[in-house]
C-alpha cells in the first residue's frame, strides 16, 4: 500500500516537472531558426521580423500580468509609449548613448507600472481593465499637450538615430539590430521562465487562481500584484524603447488605444498563460494585417475582431495551447 502511494507521488512529481522542464531540443531549434532569419531575407523582411520580436516582448509582458497573475490591462499601449518616449527623449534631447536607453526605458516603465498598480490593487479585475483603458485613451493626448511640447515634440514627435554597426562586425544595420532585439528577447524570455518557476511565480499564479485563498496562505497579494504590474510594464517598456530605436521616430498617434488592442489580440491568439505563445502572437499581429489588407483594405481590424471571437470559441488556450495539444496527441500515437 505504501509502495503504491510512493509510486503515485513519484508519478505526480514527474508530471509536474515535465510541464516545467525546459525542452532543450525545441529551444535549440527555435534559436537556430531565429538566428538564420537575418541572413536569409531582404532588409524589409528583416525589419518586419524585428518588429515581431519587439511585439513578442511586449506581449510577454502583458501575459505575465494577465496570463499568470489574472489582472487585466487594456492600457499597455501607454507603457509601450512611455518606453518609446524615454528612449527618444534621452537620445534626442540629452544625447544618451542609444544602447543605454533600452534598459532605462524598461526601468522608467517599471516605476510607472508599479505606481499605477498601487491604486489599482484595490480594484478587482474589471475596474483595473477600466482604469487602464482610461490610461490608454488619455496618453496620446497627454503626449500632444503643449505643456510637454518642449520635451516630447508635441504632435510632430521626435526623431532619434541609431548608431551604425561596430566596424569589426560584418553585418548591415537591419541584421545587427535584429540580432540585438532577438538577444534581448531571449534574455527576457529566460527571465520570465525563471520568474514563473520561482516562489514568486507560484505566488502570482495562486493569486490568479484564488485571491482569497492565496491571501489566507500568507501571500502578500497587494505587493505581488503591484510588482507584477511593474514587471509587466518593464517588459513592455523595453519593447517600446526598442521599437522607437528600430523605427527611429516616435509620435503620439503611434500609441493610441489601437496599439493596446493589438497587443491584447496577440496575447489571446498566442495563448494566455504560456511564455512561447508571445512569439506566435507577435507574428500574428504583424502578418495578419498584411493578408487582411489584400482581401479588403481597411478591414484588418474587423478580421482581427472575428478571429478574436473565434479563438474564444474554438481554441481558448490560443495558438500555444493548440500546439501543445497536437504534440501530446502525437506522443500518444507513438
Amino acid at each position, binding site marked *: 500500500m505504501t509502495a503504491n502511494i510512493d509510486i503515485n507521488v513519484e508519478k505526480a512529481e514527474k508530471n509536474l516537472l515535465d510541464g516545467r522542464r525546459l525542452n532543450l531540443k525545441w529551444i535549440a531549434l527555435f534559436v537556430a531558426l531565429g538566428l538564420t532569419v537575418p541572413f536569409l531575407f531582404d532588409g524589409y523582411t528583416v525589419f518586419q521580423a524585428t518588429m515581431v520580436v519587439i511585439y513578442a516582448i511586449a506581449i510577454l509582458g502583458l501575459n505575465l500580468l494577465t496570463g499568470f497573475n489574472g489582472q487585466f490591462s487594456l492600457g499597455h499601449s501607454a507603457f509601450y509609449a512611455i518606453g518609446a518616449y524615454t528612449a527618444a527623449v534621452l537620445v534626442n534631447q540629452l544625447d544618451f548613448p542609444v544602447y543605454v536607453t533600452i534598459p532605462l526605458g524598461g526601468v522608467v516603465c517599471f516605476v510607472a507600472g508599479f505606481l499605477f498598480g498601487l491604486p489599482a490593487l484595490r480594484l478587482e479585475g474589471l475596474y483595473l481593465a477600466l482604469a487602464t483603458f*482610461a490610461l490608454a*485613451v488619455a496618453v496620446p*493626448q497627454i503626449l500632444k499637450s503643449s505643456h510637454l511640447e518642449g520635451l516630447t515634440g508635441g504632435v510632430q514627435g521626435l526623431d532619434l538615430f541609431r548608431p551604425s554597426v561596430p566596424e569589426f562586425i560584418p553585418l548591415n544595420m537591419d541584421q545587427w539590430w535584429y540580432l540585438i532585439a532577438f538577444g534581448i528577447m531571449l534574455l527576457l524570455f529566460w527571465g520570465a521562465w525563471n520568474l514563473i518557476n520561482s516562489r514568486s511565480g507560484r505566488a502570482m499564479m495562486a493569486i490568479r487562481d484564488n485571491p*482569497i485563498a492565496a491571501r489566507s496562505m500568507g501571500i502578500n497579494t497587494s505587493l505581488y500584484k503591484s510588482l507584477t504590474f511593474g514587471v509587466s510594464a518593464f517588459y513592455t517598456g523595453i519593447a517600446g524603447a526598442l521599437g522607437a530605436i528600430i523605427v527611429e521616430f516616435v509620435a503620439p498617434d503611434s500609441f493610441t488605444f489601437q496599439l493596446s488592442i493589438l497587443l491584447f489580440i496577440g496575447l489571446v491568439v498566442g495563448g*494566455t498563460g504560456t511564455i512561447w505563445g508571445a512569439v506566435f502572437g507577435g507574428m500574428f499581429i504583424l502578418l495578419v494585417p498584411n493578408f487582411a489588407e489584400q482581401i479588403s483594405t481597411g478591414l484588418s481590424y474587423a478580421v*482581427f475582431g472575428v478571429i478574436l471571437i473565434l479563438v*474564444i470559441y474554438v481554441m481558448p488556450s490560443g495558438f500555444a495551447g493548440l500546439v501543445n495539444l497536437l504534440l501530446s496527441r502525437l506522443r500518444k500515437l507513438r
Partner: protein
Amino acid sequence: MDLFLQQILTGLANGSIYACLALAVVMIYQAIDHFNFAQGEMAMFSTYICWTMISVGVPYWLAFFLTIAISFAGGVAIERLIFKPIHNAPVLSHIIVFIGLLAIFNSMAGAIWDHTIKTFPSPFPDGSFQGLIGMHEVGMFFVTLIMLACIFCFFRYTRIGMAMQAAAANPESAELVGIRVSWMLALGWGLAAAIGAVAGMMIAPIVFLDPNMMLGILLYGFAAAIVGGISNPGGAVAGGFLVGIIENLAGTYLPAIGSELKLTVALVLIVTVLLFKPNGLFGKSIVTRV
C-alpha cells in the same frame, strides 16, 4: 458670471450624453457583471445607420425611431448569438469578445462609410437660448431627460421591467418564479444598445460623425458610471451630469487643462473615485463571501 452659467449649462448638456452612455453601461453591468467596452462603437454604428437613412431622404424623427428599433434588435442579436454561448466563461473571455466587437464595429464603419468626417443634422432649430447655450444642447438635454423618465417608468411600473430587475438581482430565484432569465439578459442588451444609439445620434451634431468619435465619449460614460456608482442606474445618471459639469469647469478655469487635456480629466476622475470611494457616490458596497 455669464461664462460660469454658460459652462454649467453646456456641462449639463454634455453630461446628459454621458448619462445616457453610463446608463447603457450600468444596464449591461447589472445583467452580466461586465463593462461593455464596445458600447461606444455600437452607438457609433447606430448613428451611421441613422445618417444613411437621413441621407436617402427619410424624415429625421422617423429615422431616429427606426434606428432605435434596429439598435434594439441588434443588441438582442449580439447577446443571443455571441454572448449566450460563453455565459459561464471567465471574465477574460468576455473582455476579449468586447474588444473583438469594438474592433469589428470600428473597422466595419470605416470600410462601409469611409473615414471622412461627416456632418450630422440636428432636429432642433438653430440659434441659442438666451444667448447662453445652443438650441441643440437644450434639445439634447430634454431628449435625454424624457428617455430617462421612460426607462424609470419601464423598470418601476411594468411587469417586464420588474422581471428584468429580478433577473439581474438574483438569477436563480427569478428562474424559479418563472422568469426567463436568459431572455431578460438579451432584453438588457437590446435596451443598452438602444440607449447608446440615442446618445450617439444626439452627440453626433456636436462632435461630427466619424468612426472614432465615441472613444473619448465612452471614457466619460465610464467615468460617469464610476462616479455615480456602477450598481445604481440613478446614480450613474447623476454621475453623468456631474462629470459633464466638472469637465467643462476644469476646461475653462484650470489653464493647465484647457481643451487639450480633457481626456486626462476623465482618467484622473476614474482613478480618484476608485481609490477613495470604489463604490461611487451613490453605490452600495459589495461584500465578498468566501
